[in-house]
């Protein structure tokens, strides 16, 4: 097989495997607003309200 073609196929395979690994283990997808070792339950509270989802009526 043409070496360049091999590089393309291997590259695609590595990208799929890499993305699959990161998706499977959730790399970098932990919530970023959690309080580690926290005593406070309030950490990360986003509040709420009529416009909290960005809707403007």
């Amino acid at each position: 097989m043409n070496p360049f073609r091999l590089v393309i196929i291997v590259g695609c395979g590595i990208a799929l495997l890499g993305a699959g690994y990161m998706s499977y283990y959730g790399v970098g997808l932990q919530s970023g607003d959690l309080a580690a070792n926290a005593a406070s339950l309030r950490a990360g509270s986003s509040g709420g309200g009529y416009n909290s989802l960005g809707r403007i009526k």
Partner: protein
Amino acid sequence: MTAAVHLSSVNCTQCGAGLSVLGGGRVLSHVCGYCGAVLDTQNAYKVIDSIGKRDHPASPVNIGMTLTAQGAEFTVIGTIGMLETWGGRTWNWVEHQLFSPTHGYAWLSHEDGNFTFTRKIRDFPMRHWLSSRQVEASETPPHRSFRGETYRYFETTTAKIDFMEGEFNWRPRLDDATTTVTLLGPNAMLGLVDGPTEREVELTTLLPRNAAMADLGIPVGTAQPPRYHALTPYRQLPEEGAMKRAFGVTTVLALLLALAFSIASGSAVLQQTRIPVSALPQTYSFTITDTARLASVTFRSDVQNAWAVFSAEITGPGGAPILAGSRATERYSGVDQGERWSEGNGYGDFRFRPTQTGPHTVTVALEETGTDGIRPQNAQAVDLTVRQGVGSGFWMLVCAGVFALAWAAIHARAAMHRKRRFAGSDWTDED
């Protein structure tokens, strides 16, 4: 310069200048480059016409040069200057008649720094002839099929001869006009030439410029730099076809895997439904067995035109708090200018990565609540779910996006080339 061998010559019967004879037995006329006499080669070089002394049009190609085209060696035997005037603008180009003892007559054209090679063809079905009138009457660019390729209308030119010198296998006359309808195919141009006495079909291909110049003996630096030509071939990327296929397949696979990761949302290690909000805070136990993958805490409340913020504090196997987080759940709906709308789904979650296996606890509490809108309902109950082994389709979607962009970029490159080829067409949709 490469000179043809075995030259013979005659003297001009008008001015006596020596004229090279290069063109073979089917030459009908010879135009003296010194005095402009048009000589009948079939009748003892008798003078039949004269164009007088005229300025030679600019062309790096001279009579006597040779080049190899389509596997045969041709000699330049004549030069024709062409002039087209339309809409107050003027275009000039130069065509050179070529002769090969084995392949007959052809044309070498020089325009905008490019060299094209043209041959008459006999196998075009004349019932598919396209005239300039038919073009004018067409709603869409006409096209014709020839030798398995599709040729699409490109331009119509009506040009006349304003200079000639050398030998020709016909009898050109100054100001003889021809109308050519040109169709552009993938690798060649089809010219339907409507001349003073006959109709002819020509096929034109672009010669590799540097190779043609080297063959003709023209130093590359002395010729004008070429402008883009409609026959400029598309330069494929290395393994372009393989790249397109690989990127397309990878995109589809990544999308399917993203879907699979999104659907497979781990296994529930704690599921409590309809926990009365009035009974909060409540503490529940669950066991974590997988620390390699993410875990998630999900709240779902029954709010309506209201919001409620729930918190969860999680303790590890030793009983010490390891993290805390909170999420708002909200849901709104109503009618606005006669249209029903809804927003939010009463759902909130967060994800964390457990560090230890073993028994854990989660304490759920209501942090804040409020209402907004008509007929509001505060949270009466909340569902709590803790899952482990949670994946995500996010990175697969990123992967699919990157490969889709790469796939689209390759297609766009080819599409831009096709568009650029026809950029010089005189077709307008108003035609």
